[in-house]
């Protein structure tokens, strides 16, 4: 009985492994592109992966190997993935770094091995680039997070007016996009003369944002607007406002344009969010990569668009 069981388990394991690795063996003569992303548990990156796959299917002239990680801060897995791609001698690596500084040495290694690296979504640190002997204007394809949050912050300003009382719910302390989004919100705060009651983090998470917002409502019952650094936190904030019976009286804006928030916007429970077109961004990064492989010299910041999403442009 035991033996039969172990044979079955072994067979199942081998089948699993075979089906997972099948994709990698299928690679033929087409150029191979390694795509290193952040957490695939995040809808934003999941959509990005799907976008990249769609682009691969549509173009048909390259093979894509996407790699995601378990959490947004898992730098180790990303460095391992970079090293694997270098030893596999892929033609191009598209990288959304989990850490602006930590991934720079891997980028240098890839470049030394003759592999083109395209940095997208989160920009690599300029000082670290310089220290590692890479050009400071290393090509970056990505959105202007600061611009995005500034736009949606201003959208909020138009709704609640100058001098209104607002709260900022920040992303992970230390994360670059969290810093940039906060900087954008702060620009709106000064442009509209908002009274900033508090600016504090909920670590990108819904549950934490819900608890935080509930408590902040006790402390600042007269708050008029809430700016959240991502949509997951906006979900929690909206629900807290609803639970306090202030639904519709306090305006919430977010960032990322996830499905659940589109729903809230349509129901009038949330004011707006920002779309940074993840799937298009990754396709664009691959496109730019091919242009460089074709001999073009491109560097600096290839900005990808950001757009405020509100009831006006949602069907």
């Amino acid at each position, binding site marked *: 009985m035991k033996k039969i069981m172990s044979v079955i388990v072994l067979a199942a394991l081998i089948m699993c492994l075979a089906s997972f690795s099948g994709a990698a063996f299928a690679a033929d003569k087409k150029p191979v592109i390694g795509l290193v992303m952040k957490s695939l548990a995040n*809808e934003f990156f999941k959509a990005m992966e799907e976008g990249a796959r769609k682009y691969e299917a549509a173009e048909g002239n390259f093979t894509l190997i996407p790699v995601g990680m378990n959490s947004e801060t898992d730098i180790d897995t990303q460095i391992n993935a970079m090293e694997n791609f270098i030893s596999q001698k892929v033609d191009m690596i598209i990288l959304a770094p989990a850490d602006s500084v930590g991934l720079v040495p891997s980028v240098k290694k890839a470049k030394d091995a003759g592999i083109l690296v395209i940095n997208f979504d989160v920009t690599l640190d300029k000082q670290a680039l310089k220290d590692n002997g890479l050009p400071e204007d290393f090509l970056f394809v990505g959105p202007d997070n600061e611009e995005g949050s500034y736009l949606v912050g201003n959208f909020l300003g138009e709704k609640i007016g100058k001098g209104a009382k607002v709260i900022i719910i920040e992303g992970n302390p230390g994360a670059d996009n969290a810093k940039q989004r906060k900087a954008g919100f702060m620009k709106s705060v000064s442009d509209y003369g908002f009274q900033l009651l508090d600016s504090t983090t909920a670590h990108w*998470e819904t549950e934490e944002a819900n608890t935080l917002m509930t*408590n902040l409502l006790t*402390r600042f019952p007269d708050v008029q607007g809430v700016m959240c650094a991502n949509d997951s936190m906006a979900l929690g904030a909206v629900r807290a406002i609803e*639970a306090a019976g202030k639904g519709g009286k306090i305006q919430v804006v977010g960032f990322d344009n996830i499905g659940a928030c589109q729903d809230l916007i349509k129901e009038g429970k949330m004011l707006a969010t920002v779309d940074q077109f993840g799937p298009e961004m990754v396709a664009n990064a691959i496109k730019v990569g091919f242009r460089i492989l074709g001999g073009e010299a491109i560097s600096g910041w290839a900005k990808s668009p950001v757009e405020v999403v509100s009831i006006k442009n949602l069907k």
Partner: protein
Amino acid sequence: MMDTKKIAYFLLNEAGIGIILVLLCVLFSYFVPAFASMNNISNIFTQISINTVIAVGMTFVILLGGIDLSVGSVLALCSILAGLTITNKSLPVPLAIFLAVSVSIAAGIACGLFNGCVCERWNIHSFVVTLGMLNMARGAALQVSNSRTIFSFPKSFNVVGTYSIFGSLPVIFIMAVALVLIGHFVLKKTVFGRMIYAIGNNEEAVRLSGHNTKHYKIAAFAICGACVGVAAILYMLRLNIASPILGNGFELSAIAAVVIGGTSMNGGKGSMIGTLIGAAIIGVLNNGLLLLGMSDFARQIVTGAIIVIAVILDTYRAKLSLILS
């Protein structure tokens, strides 16, 4: 002399941790008037409900000297399965809600049974097995949901989440307290409960007296899983979404609540009421420190310090009650 001993004994054993809770509440109400408002207390009730429910299950496991690290991930898996069921448009709403609740609890029990059976069959410490389950359940939740957040639950379901009785007793808190009371009854008044304490104190003695201790340990994990299933439903009631990434770190809050509540990590000692007070202390700290206007980082430091202090106090309590008894 005897009387002071008796009083000290009572304070140490039954009320020890409750005194800290009362002290915290008094301090916060003194410094922040808004703290003691009906509205804020009601908020704290809501905020501690989910952790309390998980901690009830965790108490059973820890009383047996085990640990369950998988509760956060299993919670995500349960919520995803329940979310998919409840948003299934081909089912009538009441049936969908009923099925969602059943699916969530069943999935929790299944994960718990898996944990318990593997631990007992191969004599592996639950730390390792539940660490494995932590990854499996998270992966399964992401796989099943395709890492999407599930939303648009039926209106009648959403309304319950914000409903309060007498304006200040949230329904989800009442559910949590009911579970605490059931847990308390099971532990103190049933043979099953007494066996849990006995096994936690001296497993060998119980085994030699002719009882199969493995069954009790597996049952404890199943109970923990069931509680997680309930917690997943409370989560959906509270936030109106089901997400595959939720519950990160919930295991630590639940373990903290159980330990602050005076349950020994070595098993055999502790109580369900203590667990409720432990969860309340974490909730009150989180709420009160924010109302005080303390920064994120300072809040984290203080909350961590309180956990350590509570456990230090616990070692003294054990020693003192030995001397006094």
